[in-house]
């Protein structure tokens, strides 16, 4: 908390103009189309989006986990100044799980059913810190306790199927923080869980962050999760960023029509509430212009002609919408 004060100013993760596209039978799928964001230690960034928004692919691309042949990844993903996208696979393997960790979406399938959980939690420790078996097991028990697994000494040797969904999610988190990474990316960590467990997991993630002072990137479609835990929010649609702001500002003064639509869809719609019509597009061969215009009640000709760029509306609040920037002028 002391000497790190100046280091906290630099973002731990700085993504610039990330682009990921895939080759599919129907054409080129631009899953991520120019995404930029940065996260500093001790801050939580939530990436919000629905199907086809590209939020999960963003995380996978940063960790160089995109493996489909024909996939193209471009842009920069700077971790402490080093571009992850330029590193060799060996160098990436050294970073994954050690300095940057990803908690996968589905606790049911994220753990290997054939191995005891203690071993899976300790895997990173043995790999990256070279701990011996006994030391790793002891540390794994500590980690299980830290994430709230009761009786960790005995449960360390149990198999994943002997735990509930919430417990498994905690175990996944334990494995991810084992080496105390600087950056933790969690992809929909609460989606498959019961409501009462969701709150537990969010609290756990936040308290772990306070202990480890890492940067937390949380990917979700649930605005309630965002409201609960995010410091900054980035809204994605069809592979592009449509709005980015600190949490309170986003919920207080949402500007992009999509954000507005999402918020009113999430909250009590009430009488006269008009949901966003249509559905999120699959980003293949999207025509020029704003990706949201087909569903936007305020779309104009300008929206069809040119894709809006992200422009600052206030400090730390950027929006990609022709209408918004025009008004701010």
């Amino acid at each position, binding site marked *: 908390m002391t000497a790190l004060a100046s280091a906290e100013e630099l973002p731990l993760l700085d993504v610039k103009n990330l682009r990921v596209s895939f080759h599919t039978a129907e054409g080129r799928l631009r899953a991520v189309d120019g995404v930029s964001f940065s996260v500093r230690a001790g801050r939580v960034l939530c990436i919000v989006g*629905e*199907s086809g928004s590209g939020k999960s692919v963003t995380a996978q691309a940063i960790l160089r986990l995109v493996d489909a042949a024909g996939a193209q990844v471009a842009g920069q993903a700077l971790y402490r100044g080093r571009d992850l996208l330029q590193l060799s696979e060996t160098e990436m393997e050294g970073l994954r799980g050690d300095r940057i960790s990803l908690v996968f979406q589905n606790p049911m399938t994220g753990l290997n059913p054939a191995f005891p959980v203690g071993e899976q939690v300790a895997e990173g420790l043995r790999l990256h810190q070279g701990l011996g078996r006994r030391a790793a097991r002891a540390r794994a028990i500590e980690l299980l306790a830290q994430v709230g697994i009761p009786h960790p000494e005995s449960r360390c040797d149990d198999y994943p199927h002997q735990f*509930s*969904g*919430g*417990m498994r999610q905690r175990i996944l988190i334990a494995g991810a923080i084992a080496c105390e990474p600087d950056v933790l990316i969690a992809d929909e960590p609460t989606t498959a869980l*019961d*409501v*009462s*467990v*969701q*709150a*537990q997991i*969010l*609290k756990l993630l*936040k308290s772990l962050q306070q202990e480890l002072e890492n940067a937390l990137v949380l990917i979700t*479609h*649930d*605005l*309630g*999760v*965002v*409201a*609960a*835990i*995010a410091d900054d929010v980035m809204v994605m649609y069809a592979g592009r960023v449509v709005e980015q702001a600190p*949490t*309170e500002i986003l*919920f207080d003064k949402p500007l992009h029509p999509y954000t507005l*639509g*999402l*918020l*009113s*869809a*999430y*909250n*009590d*719609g009430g009488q006269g*509430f008009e*949901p*966003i*019509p249509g*559905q*999120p597009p699959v980003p293949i061969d999207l025509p020029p212009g704003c990706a949201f215009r087909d569903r936007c009640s305020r779309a104009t000709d300008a929206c069809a002609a040119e894709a809006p760029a992200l422009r600052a509306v206030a400090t730390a609040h950027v929006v990609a919408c022709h209408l918004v920037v025009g008004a701010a002028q």
Partner: protein
Amino acid sequence: MTEVLLEARNLVKTFKVGSRGLFGRTRSLRAVDGVSLTLRRGETLGVVGESGCGKSTLGRVLLRLIEPDSGALRLNGRDLLALNASDLRDMRRHMQMVFQDPVGSLNPRMTVEQNLADTLRFHRLASERSVVIEALREIGLSDAYLDRYPHEMSGGQAQRVAIARALIFNPELIVLDEPVSALDVSIRAQILKLLAELRARHRITYVFISHDIGVVRRISDRIAVLYLGKIAEIGDAAPLAANPLHPYSQALLRSALVADPRRNRVASLSVIEGDLPSPIDPPAGCRFHARCVHATDRCAREEPPLFDVAPGRSVACFLHEPTDAPQEQTRKELVGS
């Protein structure tokens, strides 16, 4: 005074759960453990609870898609449990279901038109294209969808088709089992709005099952909170959501996330301690006592019945036991009015 559409008394459904090894004993899972309900025509009852609470099973038992082990079930005065297979099938014209997996609930080898037309054919009803087109129009899909296969549609479109199928007989009751949980947030809103419109237009009674208290709150007239196969609390939606009485309902509502950072920051989230116990070996006494901050010795010994605490509100908790106890306790079978 609106009439009663469905009456359920003391429904019980247990499943046998496999034994461990050769000599393990088979254990029973009491999915629905003595649930009584009364549904009035035109109302929407929201059934909310977490995994393992039995809400999906309850929904199916209400339609007799799953045979209850015991209890009584009457629709429009007719005893559903006494019907033979053929009469039960005929009865299905009055009670329908919408499922959680929209694409999966349609026959993958049939087009939309065939799926709908075939449903009509089950009851020897007219199944011409015009009927199907009309059904699609009502849920907002054009003729272009007639020739689509389920996998060629998005979740939202498929769910509309499933709703069209459920509506096609003009049923009086539709049970919806997590109908929007698998859908994107923006699509969810569309479907909920559609359901509300259809309800108004056709005066259908809904049983809306979901784990998402936010959604249930919006669409329901009354809410029933289920915990391990029993009703913990039941009452009119707005008062219940604003002021839940059962400790579990309180915890559930409080841990539901809201899209408002001022009301809902992680530091202030309340958490129910412990994990959901397995419905296979429920604890003795009140099902919730192990996780309840207000639990007393009595709660560990006795199971509280549903007490009527106010007109339209019942709670299964000793905290709310009316003080003139003896008469009230005998009313434990009757619910909701």
